[in-house]
């Protein structure tokens, strides 16, 4: 009996009590008790959550998709590519293999907050035994541009850091707009993401924020009965036929970040494979209104990605 009591006590004690200083409601509608100023944050998605938090000057201690030594398990190292010299040092450590999260590794990082996307809802209960779990919306249709970074800044008490980043960014928007050949406020844009198919990028990404802050309007695809893409973090699939008829004033094309090669030559190769002869019939390509960018640098919902997009647009405008 005594042993049973000890075992029971041990079982209850294993659910570590975390100092909870305030109560917040996450985007899944869950009420979560979190520390006033979380310091040891683990993120369940590197580009959608880890990079925005690091962009605010808070380095996550753990990040899904990293190895034990902090090296990336993915084909793109988003912290390095997006934040460059502002990337966390040391890099966040891993929490198990991709597709096989390790609860013990996660616990050894001693997190005081775990941040996931709305797609991690089914894991939230399990992870709550380690630290409070906050779920942040990250899908197109639910968040827009770099709204997710702003929401995370509010959650983590980094509003001042975000405001500083945004002020610098808005000044850069004015600078880049002045270099453009025409007024973008009268023009449309569309961003294409090439995986094994053609996808239109939704509303959630720093690059979209940059394009729209410059004044471009997203080309409407509704008349083509294209799937709305609600629930996807980034993409809306497009048929090759629809793609061939597209004529935005600015067409931005990029390769998937699942590939190592994401430069202009690699993007052209992907287009050749999916839509042979595109250079001859795609109007923006024939008229020089096409821009090739590295998806890994511009698709995170961060001010940093928006700034990378402005750099790319400026370089294109000066050609």
């Amino acid at each position, binding site marked *: 009996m005594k042993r049973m009591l*000890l075992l029971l006590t041990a079982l209850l004690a294993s659910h570590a009590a975390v100092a909870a200083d305030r109560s917040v409601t996450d985007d899944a509608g869950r009420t979560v008790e979190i520390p006033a100023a979380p310091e040891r944050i683990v993120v369940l998605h590197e580009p959608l959550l880890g990079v925005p938090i690091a962009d605010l000057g808070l380095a996550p201690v753990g990040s899904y998709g990293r190895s034990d030594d902090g090296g990336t398990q993915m084909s793109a190292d988003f912290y390095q590519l997006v934040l460059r010299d502002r990337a966390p040092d040391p890099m966040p450590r891993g929490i198990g293999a991709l597709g096989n999260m390790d609860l013990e590794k996660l616990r050894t990082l001693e997190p005081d907050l775990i941040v996931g996307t709305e797609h991690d*809802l089914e894991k939230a*209960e399990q992870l709550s*035994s380690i630290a409070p779990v906050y779920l942040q919306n990250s899908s197109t249709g639910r968040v827009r541009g770099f709204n997710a970074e702003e929401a995370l800044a509010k959650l983590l008490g980094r509003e001042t850091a975000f405001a500083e980043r945004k002020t610098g960014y808005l000044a850069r928007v004015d600078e880049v707009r002045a270099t453009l050949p025409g007024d973008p406020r009268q023009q449309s844009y569309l961003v294409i993401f090439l995986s094994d198919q053609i996808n239109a990028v939704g509303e959630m990404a720093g690059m979209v924020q940059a394009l729209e802050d410059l004044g471009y309007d997203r080309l409407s695809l509704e008349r083509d009965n294209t799937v709305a893409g609600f629930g996807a973090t980034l993409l809306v699939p497009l048929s090759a036929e629809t793609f061939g008829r597209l004529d935005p004033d600015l067409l931005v094309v990029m390769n998937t970040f699942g590939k190592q090669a994401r430069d202009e030559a690699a993007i052209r190769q992907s287009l050749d494979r999916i839509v042979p002869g595109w250079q001859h019939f795609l109007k923006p390509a024939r008229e020089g209104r096409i821009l090739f960018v590295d998806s890994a640098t511009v698709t995170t919902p961060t001010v940093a990605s928006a700034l990378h997009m402005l750099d790319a647009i400026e370089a294109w405008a000066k050609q």
Partner: protein
Amino acid sequence: MKRALSSGGRKVLRWNSGLEIRLDTLWAALLLVAAGLGFSGLAINVGATRTGISDFIGLLSGATLNENQLFALLDVRLPRLVLGFMAGWCVAITGAMLQSLSQNPLADPGLLGLSQGAMVTILLLLVFAPAAPIGLVPVVAILGGLGVAVLLIWLTGGGHSDGLAILLMGIAVETVLSSITSIMILYLPPETSFAVSDWLAGSLFQASWGNIAALAPWVALSLPAIILLGRVLSCYDLGEETAMSLGEPVPRSKPVILFTSVLLTSAAVTAVGPLAFLGVMAPHLANALAPATGRARLVLSGLTGGVLVVGADALTRGFAGDIAIPIGLALTLLGVPLFVISMRLRAVLTLQRN
């Protein structure tokens, strides 16, 4: 209790009450229990936290462990072990039941569409009502599995149909349901389809005492099912006509066996996702250890299923490093070589006897 010879000339242990257990069955069960304990020891030892079986034994005898060790042992490794064994037990027993029912050694919950029925309804719930309470998932899974069972019984003409008809119709239904699953995976947003694909590959990530408590009633149900249906299934093994001539009410017992299979399969699928091929593999491996029928076959199959899942999980967690191997694939990696060896041995022995 004394050693004796059965009417078939095999060595048995016979109790005064008349209960007798064949010695080879008993040895096989002991071997499986030993293998299960061995794999459990390995599973308790494997993980990022420095703790293991000696700490666990120490804990049981009143030793104090730190929080990380307690978490690793009691919140991660032990629930994984227990849930894996329970799910493997349920799926393997279902496989053995369905093989006797259909008189076909290929039958398993996956082949007859019962797992797919549960999976499709869970997928529909996840996609169209993602905010639905988690507690609804097992109910929906059982409804899906039952739907397929009722459809099979209806399509094959009720309890009067033969085993082959059920098997063939089951394959047809399973194919249709697999297509529906594929279509859903193809057209779901990428993140949802990745999550669904993870689940379809089988996972013990969600192992917790809550999940174990949810699966426990169904595992408990399997015990009276073994006692009540074991004798019935040994009649089915002789063929339906012989079973009827032995007084077995086939039109009544067939739906009961199918219904029990649905309950056990749906509960296991809800807990860990589909465990592909385990329903076929475990009864055959159990049969290779000790050929048995009825209750003994169900118990040996259940033990084999449980041991295979625990072993596959422990080995992959111990040796896969940073490579993610879902439990479905791990089971295939461990079980299929054993399955091939046992089948080959059987073929060689048959050739030698002839």
